[in-house]
């Protein structure tokens, strides 16, 4: 069982991700945007962060670089949920310290398979 921080501004995606992860026995903390996630991450320890890229207030890429700067998140796997194939988002994400990405749309099985790579 891992403790996972799931960040997405879309309630339905968040529900889906959270439901899937909880179904697989993980402990999930949800956050609605980067600011919320950062607040929840501070002072806590997570085994994995899954974050959407396009979000109001603070986007996923900023979130990842902010988290990466925290000692507790120095080596924590962080995955971006992205639909943007152009590559530049992925590159930006990598540059910010993202471990990898999950390409939307994905189904629960794909999600579990992907997080299996880093847990």
């Amino acid at each position, binding site marked *: 069982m891992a403790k996972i921080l799931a960040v997405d501004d879309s309630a*339905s995606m968040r529900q889906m991700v959270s439901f899937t992860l909880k179904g697989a026995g993980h402990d999930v903390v949800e956050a609605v945007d980067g600011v919320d996630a950062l607040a929840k991450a501070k002072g806590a320890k997570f085994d994995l962060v899954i974050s959407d890229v396009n979000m109001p207030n603070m986007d996923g890429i900023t979130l990842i670089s902010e988290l990466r700067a925290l000692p507790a998140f120095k080596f924590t796997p962080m995955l971006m949920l992205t*639909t943007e194939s152009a590559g530049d988002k992925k590159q930006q994400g990598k540059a910010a*310290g993202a471990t990898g990405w999950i390409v939307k749309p994905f189904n629960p099985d794909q999600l579990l398979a992907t997080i299996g790579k880093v847990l």
Partner: protein
Amino acid sequence: MTFDMSQFLVTFYEESFEGLDIMETELLALDVGEADLETINTIFRAAHSIKGGSGTFGLNDVANFTHVMETLLDEMRDGKRDVTQKAVNILLESVDVLREMLSSLQAEEDLDDVRISNVKQKLDNLLAGGSEETVTEEAPAEETATAGTDNSVTNSAKATPSGWVIDFKPNVDMLQTGNDPVRMLRELDALGDMVVTPDISQVPDFLMMEPENSCLSWVITLEGDIEKSAIEEVFDWVEDECELTITASTNSATAVNNEKIAEAEIISESIEPEPVKVATIEKVATAEPEPVAEATSASTSEKPAAAAKAKRKATTETSSIRVSIDKVDELINMVGELVITQSMLSQLGEDEDFGEEQIEKLKNGLMQLERNTREMQENVMRIRMLPISFVFQRFPRLVHDLSGKLDKKIELVLSGESTELDKTVMEKIGDPLVHLVRNSLDHGIEIPEDRLAAGKPETGEIHLNAFHEGGNIVIEITDDGAGLNLKKILSKARSSGIVSDNEKLTDEEIADLIFRPGFSTADVVSDVSGRGVGMDVVRRNIRALGGTVDVKTEAGKGSVFTIRLPLTLAILDGQSIVVGEEVYIVPLVAIIESIQVDSSLVNGVTGQAEVYRLRDEYIPIVKLCDVFNVKPLHDDIEDGLLVVVEAEGKKVALLVDDLLGQQQVVIKSLETNFKTVEGISGATILGDGTVALILDVSGLISISKKNASSNKKAATTSKAA
């Protein structure tokens, strides 16, 4: 793990509709030419969320459609494309189409394919027209890649069953992104028989060692029938963070295959982004938004089953409402207080010697209970309350569209959007409001030339304002147009016989004529368009909600339409009346006045029910004792009282025995437990526990009409006899 994605659809629809509303609002706020980046970003995000969600939850038609919008918005966001009025209009239209698509999907109806493809075509054309580089270059490039690699990868995969040699040298800082080579080795191990030879030559002396650096590299041989893409996928995330070569084991692959693999590699490396993805081309097509045409065709065929499932689920949904956490918390708070009061009272009840002191405490407790109950009632009501912005939202679009159509310049100002209103009232007030706003646009605001000629600014202003006043919510629609043409209204009313020639009317009464049934506003107030809005319908609908509407106007300055609505339909301001032994409730809004009966003014018109002469009007008398078959307290009409009520522009006088107080009553539906009774709209429970019926004034008026006509019939037959 498999489970039903449709369980998330409720949320998805809800947030998508919200997203569409946001898109619409922001699109309308967009300044063509110098668009605000944050606004475009907000629109983009909404489209992006809908696309992501619809793809995930199997609504591929929606995903494909949003994809094109998203691409367009992305280009605007990156500054590659100018924000033109045309683009904004097409995007607005797309928002409409999306809203229709989602509603149809939610209701399990068929999609309007013609309309969808029509608008999609417009979007495609727009895309193709603006930045040709993206479309024409990228799509074919991807296609070539598809053709080339697809072929060769399958070939090579088939012909190289024996294995691969992987040279894997992570960059020194690979661990910094949370990627651990051990995990990749573990994954490779799962693919086939793995032999790993580590290279420790780069590892520094123990004293020089940096624990955060990655200094090892590996040569890995994998045996088995493995596709190259599977291996590449393992390294997908780290391709920029390591040196990686993957070669087929020399002993097995033929020269031809090697060539093809090499070719595949060249092609796949030449295009951005990931070579890995090209091999699993189906996945790429659904996942990647960039190559428009291809993604569309490939993903439409996918997941039809999921879509079907989603449809089935939609029917089981009940209508829900979103309540802010604050309101729920407040309620919980209040329940807490209620519990405290209750326990205090029950403790008091257990007190053995019950004296004066206890009675004082009891009184205090009961007072507290009363306060708690009232507060709780208010708060429970507030749960059904939504900000009126839900209704106001649609107006910027309406004004935008209509002012374009009418060639007028109009600015819409909204205020008091956070004023809260009962959900049911909200749903029903939408149409009348649209009527009124449209009316102001159409008939109120003048065309720019006329405005300039009248010394007014070229741009007209329509102001929608909502606020609370007493127990009511007031909505004002103010325009700075020409105002109603009272002379024309009066002459029209005279000519159509609504007003008699010698009748003197105040300006207010003349303005009020536009709400009369049968009074057509077309060609009277304005000659601009032929659309005569039925103001009588507006007033009828608002009255049905227990509200009122009136108009104030000043020639040349504009008009103000004022709508007053009860905060909720569940509670009604009522006047208690007595007929015989029974108490009835008359809705306060319907009452015009209550008078003592002067029998000299009661006329029995031949063949008609009795009428009462009130000033210049003859008002039919409805004897409630007869209607409800109750024995009246007073036999003589002079001892009774007349309550003059109005509905749908008609007045009747209700004969009652006595008037009691005014009070707020909670409406209980009669139909749920009994059946519909003409003249009764519901029931309520009074303070003493007895049930009182609530009168339905328009029902009583139609009863009085029926009586009149049957009396007439009786009279004519008796005459004939």
